[in-house]
């Protein structure tokens, strides 16, 4: 009979989201806690009795007491499941107090892995963990996965770290060898650390975080339902995320239908559960830019969080635009001075940006006064 389990990681429970307004901040924190229940539901519906969490279950080495207690209580409430927690780089074994408390206060269906000793997690199924000893251990901890197990055992590796170092732009080689599963005779290697879901080999996967926490991975987050039912495991992604973090980019040019482009770039439904960081580039006439800003002001409250960066969107002032400020006279003259300054290569970029912003403001104010 096939052994089935749910592979997840990087819950980062207790993450503060201090850079966001209080309303969305609380919702984001709550969504992370809620991921426990969604993982349990996914495991249950997939026929899995074990949930492997491949590190970084907690965001900090010393999470707030309520964060820890709520998490332990939520896992305990899913009594029909077994939760196996691996220390990651955020909640490494150096966080000895955390793991002491998990050991002391954790429910019976939770096992914190604090050493590399193979665990018998089901009949004939052995887990070979590689807990992070430090935030940056500096060595391949997964060597421990070559430890012996009874003959014929099904071996599952559980590790946390980089096969590819994603901190750089090029994705340099990391510490965990990509062929670790083959080297150590693993039927499946469950990895954590990378917040996006990724297959390394047919038997080596990053599950990604079940609830996204940033704009880096613009995909639907979830967990992996794994069935060890043949030479190659059957891996099924399961969606678990509540929030989507989107970073749409609008490259605009004069003549574009700004409203249509904006509408097309943004999600159509569940706006409240979306965090949007829109970046606009290109060049727009003053009127279109003003229309874009007005549209952004209008739609931003629909979303859970919305931020628009127009700093890279240049202003193109057409004669008609300036006419709308004034046909002539002092207002027109001020507009022309600012327009010239915004495109003056002799000035620094901040000075040009300031002039462009001043011109946009003048345009908007002139329309208000005229109205």
């Amino acid at each position, binding site marked *: 009979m096939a052994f089935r389990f749910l592979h997840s990681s990087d819950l980062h429970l207790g993450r503060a989201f*201090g850079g966001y307004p209080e309303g969305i901040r609380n919702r984001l924190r709550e969504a992370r806690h809620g991921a426990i229940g969604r993982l349990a539901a996914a495991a249950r519906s997939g026929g899995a009795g074990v949930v492997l969490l491949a590190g970084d279950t907690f965001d*900090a080495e*010393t999470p707030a007491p309520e964060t820890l207690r709520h998490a332990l209580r939520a896992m305990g409430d899913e009594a029909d499941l077994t939760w196996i927690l691996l220390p990651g780089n955020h909640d490494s074994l*150096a966080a000895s107090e955390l793991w002491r408390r998990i050991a002391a206060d954790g429910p019976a269906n939770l096992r914190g892995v604090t050493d590399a000793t193979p665990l018998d997690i089901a009949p004939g199924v052995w887990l070979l963990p590689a807990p992070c000893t430090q935030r940056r251990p500096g060595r391949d901890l997964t060597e421990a996965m070559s430890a012996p197990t009874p003959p014929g055992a099904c071996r599952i590796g559980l590790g946390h770290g980089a096969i590819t170092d994603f901190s750089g732009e090029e994705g340099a080689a990391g510490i965990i060898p990509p062929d670790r599963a083959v080297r150590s005779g693993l039927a499946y290697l469950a990895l954590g650390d990378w917040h996006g879901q990724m297959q390394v080999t047919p038997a080596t996967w990053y599950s990604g975080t079940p609830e996204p926490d940033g704009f880096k991975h613009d995909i639907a987050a979830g967990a992996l339902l794994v069935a060890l039912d043949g030479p190659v495991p059957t891996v099924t992604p399961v969606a678990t995320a509540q929030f989507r973090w989107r970073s749409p980019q609008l490259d605009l040019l004069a003549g574009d239908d700004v409203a249509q482009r904006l509408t097309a770039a943004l999600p159509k439904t569940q706006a409240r559960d979306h965090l949007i960081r829109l970046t606009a580039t290109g060049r727009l006439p003053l009127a279109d830019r003003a229309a874009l800003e007005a549209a952004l002001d209008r739609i931003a409250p629909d979303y859970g969080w919305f931020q628009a960066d127009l700093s890279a969107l240049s202003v193109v002032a057409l004669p008609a635009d300036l006419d709308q400020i004034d046909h002539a*006279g002092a207002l027109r003259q001020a507009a022309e001075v600012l327009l010239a300054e915004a495109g003056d290569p002799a000035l620094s970029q901040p000075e040009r940006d*300031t002039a462009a912003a001043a011109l946009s403001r*003048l345009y908007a104010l002139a329309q*208000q006064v005229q109205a």
Partner: protein
Amino acid sequence: MRLRAIELTNVRRFAGRRASLTGIGDGITVLSEPNEFGKSTFFDAIHALFFEKHRSAKGPVKALQPHAGGAPEVAVVVDLAEGRFRIAKRWLQRPQAQITDGAGRMIAQADEAEAWIDRLMGGDLAGPSGLLWVRQGVLGMEPDGSSTDDKRERERGLTARRDLLSSIAGEIDMMTGGRRMDGVVDRVAEALARLATATGRPKAGGDWARAVDEVTALAGEEASLRPRADRLSGDLARRAEVQRSLARLTDPQEAARRAEGLHQAEAAHQAAQAHQDHITQAEAARRLAVLDADQTMREVERLQDLAARVEQARVALAQAKAQASSARSRSDDLGLRDRTAASVAEAAAATTRDLRQRLAGATRSRAAQAARTQAAALQRRLERATALQGTLDANQGQRARISVSAKLLEAAEKAQAALDLARARAEAQAVTIAALPETGAVASIAGQPLPDGPQPIYAATDITLPGFGVLRVDPGQARGAEGAAEVRKAEQALERALASCGTDSLTAARSAWAEAQRLDASIAQALALMAEVAAEGIDALRSALAKATAEAADAPDTTDDADALTAALGQAERAEDEARAAARAAHDLAVTAGEARAATQADQRTAERRLADALDEAGDPAALAGQIADLRSRLPALAAAKALADTALAALRANAPDLATTTARLARAKGAVDQAAKDAGRAREDLASLNATIAALADEGIEERLSSLTESRAEAEARAARYEAEVRSLIRLRRALDDARTKARDAYFGPVLHELQPLLSILHPGAHLAIDDTSLLPAILTRNGQAEALDILSGGTREQVAILTRLAFARLFARAGRPVPVILDDALVHSDDDRIEAMFTALHRTARDQQILVLTCRQRAFAALGGERATVQVDVV
């Protein structure tokens, strides 16, 4: 643009009628009609046509509606560069706007017609090129709407425009951005005021300041929390280290290894300690053998030394006795010499004393003889001096009684001469009488016979003439009285001078002065002699005589020669000195010899005592020699025993283990065991402490809070940066607006003043007008070198200046190729006859390339204006 005709249908008083104003020329056109004709209705209607939309139902539009109601209609015919057009609007009911060309073709209607009008009214001179109104006209720039603020603003604008000058300000505002510019500037200022202070700093309570404050507060919280987080992190690391250390310390294998090490160290240390005891015993045996040999040798040496000391004492005693005998003989001899020398010295001293006594007597005898000689001389000088003193005293007494002096005598001589002169003058002036008596007859005056010769008469004088009686001669006041007074004055002066000389005549005074000179000479001679005889004085002379007399009486009776005695005494004194020196030398030698004698006697006694002591210690000399020989025979056996002990000790030392090493090794083994126990205890204590601290800090969720603070601070910093950028852009915009408005004003006022100057000169030759930069109104009028603020001038002058300024604006448009009509509605109401003539001239000057429509009810006053005369035809519709 030029107006050609105006047509009002159903407007105000023209209800149900059409009023057509025609005949408007290129220059000045005057519509001169009485009050209530409806001129202002034309004015308002034209304004509404150009500035009110046809769908508007605002006040200006409703104001056109007649009381009977209906839809007011206004149309004008204008000539443009493109041709002739008719502009027509209807309001309120079936509102309509239409533009038709000269051929009656529809050009635009409704909103397109409004746009056509807007383009017409828009200008190329930074503002509207519409009609230039001179009346309390409304230019359509007031805010519309019915809110309280709008009404207040509208009322404010209308109130301001009641002054003609303010309407100019409105036009200038339009040229320089106007209220729209003001609105933008106000909104920029409001936006800035919400965020920043006047100096561009974050404003308290504003969003920017709030973001900055948040950054500060969050950074502060972060800074205060971070040390605790670091401490927690450090404590966790330290606890891991302590746990590892404790595990090592409590490991059983490690404990067994430390116990075995201690056991081996103890065994080695005991063996080393036993060997050391053997060496100690061998060292004691060797020290004993050495001690025996050394002690025997020292006893032999002591006895030999004792025998030698007895012999030495004997020799020393013999020598001391010989020296004591020699010293005693010498002392006796020198004692005798001492006494002899003392006798000789005493004899020499006696001789010297005798000679001194004799010399003193001889000396006193010689002094008495000298004193006698001196006393005789002194006696003679005293006698001579006493005689001189008597003469001197007599002469000085006589001299003291004479008071005349050379000066006094000279004064008397002068007084006599003055008297003589006065008398001579008086006599020369006086009446004189001369008696020439006959025989025996004697004439007399006051009983005194009259002398011979002429006699002066100074006053009334009675002359007794015998036989005749008395003849009174009175010279009167005219002659002789003054001379007589001078004579009396000179006589009185002479009397005072003589009294000073102590005489009653000048002759006596002269004699007395001669006697005085004689006495002075005699006194001087006596004083000179006295100085020679008794210079020291008579009393001193007497004292010296008494002293010399006494000395002469004290003379001893001797025949000794003092000089011989003096020589003998010198010789005797030298002999005494020599004898005394010899006595002192002999005495010193005797004392020295006595001391040497005592010393040798003491030495002898010492030598005797030492010999006795040595003999007491040595005892019998034979027994002493036997004892020495016995001890010497034992010395070889003692040396052999010492050599045996040295060999045994050297052998033990050669094989001895290092006790210090075994002791140190034992201490180290014990220390390791003890230290392990202490370290384990300390580690348990540290662990307990760290567990408590970590538990407390972990309960605070510090790391989670710190992460939240860091992210919040970053967000607040980004927000503050956005506000700062916004403030920068607002400040830049404000500066751009200020610069543009200033530039526009500067560019605009120049041409206006240029156009205004010739018009102003028509009224006030040589005058200049300055415009206030802030209010934009004509402000200062300078005439004949005197500058005056416009608001203190008369209403007429201000009205004229305002109209001229407006004409200047119109000329500006005309020069730009866009001539605009100027409409004057009941203007120049304050101008006197002279000024109104000048204003007419200015209007004509402007009207050369400018259309001017004058609406007035002052038919007579404006008769002199000239120009075209417009007419109004009213028809019923």
